[in-house]
């Protein structure tokens, strides 16, 4: 009598755990937005503010060494106000490495992107030994922010 009860109760637990299969459910709706690598970056029309905000937020890390205020002196790193479109190593109040002054770079999206991804690898001999931004989206946001500072 008790044997049966116990067996039945315990089998229920195993059976319970085994059910709940999702084999019975259907896909009711599927919205294809993008393929991997092609996803929206937030859009330039509606999302412009978002990317600048994201860039400014990410720049908090950079601000340990770099000021971005118009007219502020350079610190451990050069002031970055107006860096977009500027020739590399051209501020008077900062002592650049020879590697940087001799790099021949004029900062634009592509050169900033390459440099920020791997500063020491991109301009060998640069004093900027920390602060690489490995994430492409974050670099993009930071560059957008820097660009906005030069206007």
């Amino acid at each position, binding site marked *: 009598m008790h044997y049966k009860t116990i067996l039945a*109760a315990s089998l229920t637990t195993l059976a319970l*755990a085994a059910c*709940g*299969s999702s084999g019975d459910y259907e*896909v009711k709706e599927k919205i294809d937005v993008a393929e*991997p690598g092609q*996803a929206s970056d937030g859009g330039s029309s509606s999302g412009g503010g978002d990317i600048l905000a994201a860039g400014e937020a990410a720049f908090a890390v950079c601000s340990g060494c770099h000021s971005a205020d118009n007219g502020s002196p350079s610190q451990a790193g050069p002031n970055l106000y107006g860096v977009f479109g500027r020739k590399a190593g051209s501020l008077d109040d900062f002592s650049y490495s020879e590697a940087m002054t001799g790099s021949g770079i004029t900062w634009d999206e592509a050169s900033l992107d390459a440099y920020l991804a791997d500063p020491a690898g991109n301009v060998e001999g640069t004093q900027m030994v920390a602060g690489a931004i490995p994430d492409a989206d974050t670099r993009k946001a930071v560059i957008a922010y820097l660009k906005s500072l030069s206007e």
Partner: protein
Amino acid sequence: MNDMTPETASQNPKRSRLAKWSRRGFIGAGVLAGGGLLIGIGVRPGNPIGDLAPKVAGGDGEELINSWVKIDADNIVTAIVPHCEMGQGAHSVLGQMLADELDADWSKVRVMQAPADGSYVVSDTARMFIAPFTLNAADWIEPTYDGLFKQMAHAADALITGGSSSIRSTGQYSMRIAGAAARKMLKGAAAESWEVDPVEIETRDSMLIHKASGKSAPYSEFASAAAEQDMDQTPTLKKASEFRLMGKSKPRTDIPAKINGTAEFGIDAAPEGLNLTYAAVIRPPVPGTTALSMDASKAKTMRGVLKILNMENFIAVVAESYWHAQQAVNTIEVEWSEPESPIKTMQDQFDAFAAKLDEAGDTGGLEAAGKGDVPSVLDDAAKTFDAEYKVPYLAHAPMEPLNCTASVGDGQCEIWTSTQVPLMARSEVASALDLSTDDVIIHHPFLGGAFGRRLAAEYVSMAARLAKETGYPVKMIWSREEDTQKAFYRNADTCRMRGGVDGVGKLVAFDSLFTQRHDPAQACVPAMYDIANTSIRVAEADLHLPFQAWRSVDHSHQGWFIESFIDEAAHAAGADPVEFRLGMLGKSPRHAAALKKVAEISNWGDKGGKGNAKGVAIVESFGTIVAEVIEVDMRSGKPKLTNCWAVCDAGFVMNPDGFRNQIEGGIIFGLTAAMYGGLDLKDGAIVQSNFHDYKMLRMNEVPDIKVALINSGDVPVGGAGEPGLPPAAPALTNAIFAATGKRLRELPIAKQFA
């Protein structure tokens, strides 16, 4: 399964870093190859050698002699264990048990997790779940039972880690026997080669030694030859006095990786060669409902979003990162179907319980156990008393969020996830994707906590369906809120108890009526107490929230019901709670010994100052007896837990440090639930969402815990993961009663002192 591409094979060294092993990993990367010898044959009747051989022995020079041990060319012994590691330390202790019987050098012992394959079904665990009463069957009956239970285990996909069973089933019935059998075969092989009598050969530290001739050799030298030896199906196991590793607090093998951060959990899955996408999900807020439609107009404009899906039983956004997916899914408005359950609030749930209990009355319901004549003895008792107890639903809240990584292609599905039931997960995925189980490959790394939550595998098939539907490899991660609100739960319940004492204050009748009975079936029976008349009755009621075993399962509430009521009985009889219990433990000497010892180490006789008091409880669960005393300080008007003493008798403790850790963890888990645990319902959906409103006991709230062990010897070995929990809540509420005179009949405690 074996038609793997070279590209897949090259991924395998990374996967083997954990010293865990998949069939493909082994074959492809030669993790076990390189001159190594795999030893793998079933040591138990019914273990299908023929089935196993092609699956575990991949390369040249590898032979099988038993399915749980491997000895390689470096003389490294590897224990292949069929259980998951979720923080309980089972891997390490199972290795200890095998190594001891094998006389292996502990510094050269490794532990590897068995692949999610039916051949590694833990039939002893299944037996514990299915029919605990056969555990002590006579030896001659074992093969028959084993065959039967292996069949049942297969049917139920029982590669389970649960029921506090790893040590007492796999350890005792597989690891030790495998180790002893392998040692005997190694001795036999050496004896033939050296032309000496095997009994003259000693084994120690993975070496074979023949003193008379001065010959010695490492195990690895005879590992291949050992495969030719006859295998003893019932090798002689060591006596406790001969143990070298069992009973010792060997450091756990899984700890270093967890300290230095190299341990990989399910959520860390990053299979090489897979360009992962990430999914965040919304599940139905009320159980049983489905998504009729969704408004994803905002989500589809958001950054990183790839696909948005209404999968009927959940909504998902698949995106370039988890953050993008979660941000997008948060903006989706879903129209859900109408719930069938009439229950909207916890009051509704308790009303539904009450209706069933009322219907059963004083004698109705299904009798789970009983003896004597409770109704007439209650009529004649010198004093009768009754009480009604209520417990809430509880969430498991494991620290590692629920997650699953799935990849579908070429008619196969590959899964990486933290699960307690890899084979059940495999079956669920096969069913959801209409594949054969052979085409589903489950990798199951460390679990960042489970407590029963990962006995359900619904999240695994969800990820598999997303991978199939999108065509991408997908890592799905649930937010904490999803897991708190839309998962499986420890059941709520109401229990009505009646008791009667005779003229000399002896409890002569005990009646218990409740609505929930899951597992273990005997949890509701106070079998250790000698009470002449008992009736244990179930009036089954439906649960609004789906059930899943939660650490110690029915003992988590039954332990509190029974030990609260026994305390009330002691009070009604005017007796000391320890003395009153001892008076009923005449036929349970191990329980009595544990109770006496906990009274002694807690200095029970010292009643403390004003507002300061102790409570006691004793519960046997999963083969281990645990008596606890908790001291509480009520001077601030709220309970402050000052001390907890626990005495445990598990028969024999294999690793005392690991055992204590488990008991302490169980106590803290139990006290957390007792103090704070409880889910509220609004419109049928769970109100609590995250750790701010589903609180854990914090370090400064945890009492000083002392755990003492009794090795009472010649009894089946008990478990460790759960038994510390059940006595914690009643010891605490009994202490609060002793301090204040206020009897708590509802949990959680804290809100009653707010």
